[in-house]
């Protein structure tokens, strides 16, 4: 359902994506792992055209895009078939929790207020935040904001949801509540692309793991292959380093 070929992007002189290919089937949960600054966030943003690749093709559902000459109509269509959950939540600050979940349904999907309201209330119930419906985002904890932002993404019934390190800016004790919600979303069969440093979580929920380094896909495969039987030196080195670091942190506590 999502195919990307030869995706390339530079910020000025800096080559960030050096020709990435990706195939995702409907219902897949694909996790991106890799060192900081490798371009994981950038890939997700390309899929939404929040950053502008200068080369590459993408097919998503029935949309066919050549990034070299993408037009405004295609951009909107692309964005309306995907939804993004940001590391910093990015809830609309001028809108209440309920309005945050309703707004795109009304503005973009042209649903009636009633329809948008019912859907939003249902989703807020599912993420356990019905009682916060009238609050502004600034009054919520990070974990609560992120759950609202997941509800906001689900509300537009996207073909794909893009999660960019959804728990990285949360206090440790708030991480679990958000991961639980994501896990439940994954079980509904919606296609998910997720960037995360939560390796255990990645192993548990994904059916495909993509290891990236320096703007390239180094290895991809089912979680067992990547986490347990990787034959790739760079993958192994990254995971070794990663687990050494987490162990240090655990011991330091």
């Amino acid at each position, binding site marked *: 359902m999502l195919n990307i070929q030869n995706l390339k992007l530079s910020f000025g002189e800096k080559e960030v994506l050096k020709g990435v290919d990706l195939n995702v089937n409907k219902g897949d949960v694909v996790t991106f792992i890799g060192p900081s600054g490798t371009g994981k966030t950038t890939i997700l943003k390309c899929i*939404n055209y929040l950053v502008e690749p200068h080369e590459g093709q993408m097919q998503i559902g029935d949309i066919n895009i050549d990034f070299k000459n993408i037009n405004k109509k295609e951009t909107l269509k692309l*964005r309306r078939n995907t939804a993004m959950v940001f590391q910093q939540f*990015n809830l*609309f*600050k001028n809108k209440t929790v309920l309005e945050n979940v309703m707004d795109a349904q009304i503005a973009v999907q042209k649903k009636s207020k009633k329809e948008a309201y019912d859907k939003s209330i249902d989703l807020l119930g599912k993420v356990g935040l019905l009682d916060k419906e009238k609050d*502004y985002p*600034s009054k*919520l904890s*990070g974990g609560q904001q992120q759950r609202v932002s997941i509800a906001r993404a689900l509300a537009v019934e996207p073909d794909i949801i893009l999660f960019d390190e959804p728990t990285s800016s*949360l206090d440790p004790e708030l991480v679990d509540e958000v991961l639980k919600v994501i896990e439940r979303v994954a079980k509904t069969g919606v296609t998910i692309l997720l960037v995360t440093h939560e390796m255990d979580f990645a192993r548990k929920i994904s059916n495909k793991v993509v290891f990236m380094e320096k703007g390239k896909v180094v290895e991809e495969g089912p979680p067992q292959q990547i986490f347990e039987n990787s034959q790739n030196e760079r993958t192994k080195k990254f995971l070794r380093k990663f687990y050494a670091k987490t162990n240090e942190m655990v011991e330091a506590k």
Partner: protein
Amino acid sequence: MVEAPSTIDIISLLLQVAHITLYILIISAVLGLLLGSFLTMIIVKNIPILKQLTTVLSSFTRSVPIIIQLFIVYYAIPPLLSNFGINVSNLSAVAASIVALTLYHGGYLTEVLRAAYKAVDKGQHEAADSFGYTPIQKFFRIILPQVVPVGLPGWGNALIHLIHDTSLVFALGVADIMGRAELIAAASYGMNQVQVFIIVAVIYIVVTFLSDGLVRLLEKRTKKYKLDSGLNAGGA
């Protein structure tokens, strides 16, 4: 012996022309806001040439004393425009005042609005874009409502400047409150000038008070979500 007019007389003489001051003030405030918004859009959208012109205008209006700007518009614009075949030789002093104050207020507001626009977190743009809002939907539903509370205090200050500066248009011969005040003071050989100008001061205090009230009312209505970034609740 000329009899000096009573306080009541002075007040009523001044209020007879108050509408001229208010007219200049309100028109300049509205046009200045429109101009400032337009110029801010040019800067934010980074439109070449227009952007440079805007920067020049904005720094001109900020560095040149308003009285000089008034004279420049009044005396320099008619011959300038006649070069292009536009005849405004009968540009009235009131019209010239409005043009000058609009440019001044608009230039000032450009700074205020640009800063307020920049204060909106980039993540807000990204979120709206990611859902496929059109630029116009994004602007009116998400961005503008967040620009307003940030810009309000600066807009309030700009209004106060504008109010004060309307007291200078009499220099072009406009028969506004100040112009009338000068006449009253001169008619009684300066016997009651302190009294006259204190009354003028009180009128300006009232107008400024009303303008402050308006700004504060708007601040109250938009304060509810201005409770800072919302990022702070993110911890880490």
